[in-house]
């Protein structure tokens, strides 16, 4: 099983993801340059956090034209695992691989802080090491992470059970103070209907070692490692 980590100009969390995969998880790692038109046999492609192409025009708006993104789209269509974290989530929305958009935080502030997330889908290749209803602690670091979708899309996402993570308090309650950015329905992460494309604003790669204050993020990487071999890619 091989993880691929995409590097765009302006990506900043690629080495953090790479460290977790290579040094903490002990798994196979391949960096993928944005100009690569080949995913090099990777079984899970991560679009990491950062400011790809300087967030010009809108976050993720330019990154979706990178040569590697055409291959990422094809891979997703074939059932391959694609995981967008922070800026990666924004890119997946701009590319139309996930519904909705991420807009400016309601506070207008860049928020860099710990958040609690309730896991609503523990049946996914990304979350199998978690339990449904479990609260995990994962940091965020973004200025534009407020999830928005029109009412029809939002109700479709909810009916389909596409919400994977919601911001909550320590007890798992969706209270206003626990929502750091004004996301509708406290949405922190969603998956496509097929369950192979995950987007999330919080950074699991920054809480995968006890030295960093928490290890809940490692569960997501372990889940992918455990399940990737069983994911059918046509």
């Amino acid at each position, binding site marked *: 099983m091989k993880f691929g980590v995409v590097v765009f100009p302006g990506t900043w969390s690629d080495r953090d993801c790479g460290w977790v995969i290579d040094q903490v998880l002990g798994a196979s790692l391949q960096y993928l340059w944005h100009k690569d038109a080949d995913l090099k046999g990777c079984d899970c492609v991560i679009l990491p956090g950062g400011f790809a192409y300087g967030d010009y025009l809108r976050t993720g708006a330019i990154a979706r034209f990178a040569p590697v993104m055409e291959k990422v789209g094809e891979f997703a269509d074939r059932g391959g695992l694609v995981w967008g974290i922070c800026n990666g989530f924004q890119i997946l929305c*701009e590319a139309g691989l996930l519904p909705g958009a991420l*807009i400016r935080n309601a506070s*207008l502030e860049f928020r860099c802080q710990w958040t609690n997330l309730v896991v609503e889908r523990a049946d996914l290749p990304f979350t199998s090491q978690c339990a449904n209803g479990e609260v995990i602690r994962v940091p965020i670091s973004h200025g534009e992470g407020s999830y*928005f979708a*029109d009412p029809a899309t939002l109700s479709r996402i909810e009916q389909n059970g596409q919400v994977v993570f919601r911001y909550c308090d320590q007890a798992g309650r969706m209270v206003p103070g626990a929502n750091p950015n004004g996301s509708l329905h406290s949405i922190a992460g969603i998956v496509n209907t097929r369950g192979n494309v995950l987007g999330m604003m919080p950074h699991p790669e920054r809480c995968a070692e006890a030295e960093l204050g928490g290890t809940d993020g490692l569960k997501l990487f372990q889940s992918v490692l455990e399940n990737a071999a069983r994911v059918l890619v046509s």
Partner: protein
Amino acid sequence: MSSTSRPQALARVIVTPKPVVNDPQGITVKQGLRTLGFSEVSDVRVGKYIEVLLDASSVQEARARVEAMCRQLLANHVIEDFRFEIDPGGRRAE
């Protein structure tokens, strides 16, 4: 490559957050204006202004091309509305 033989048009594109999208920048600017004494201000929306200089044989052609540009890149239809005007003279704003 820009052709020197074809006439150019200038598109002035305005992109704004959809009315249903929360616009914290607009709210903050409104509060700033009211603090400065502009008590008549009831709403502010902050968007983007984009100029596109393009080769086009006619205003209709320019209009169709810019419409496609807005749909494919300049605006995100999930959160933004757009409108534009075409200046067939092809002059940039001073």
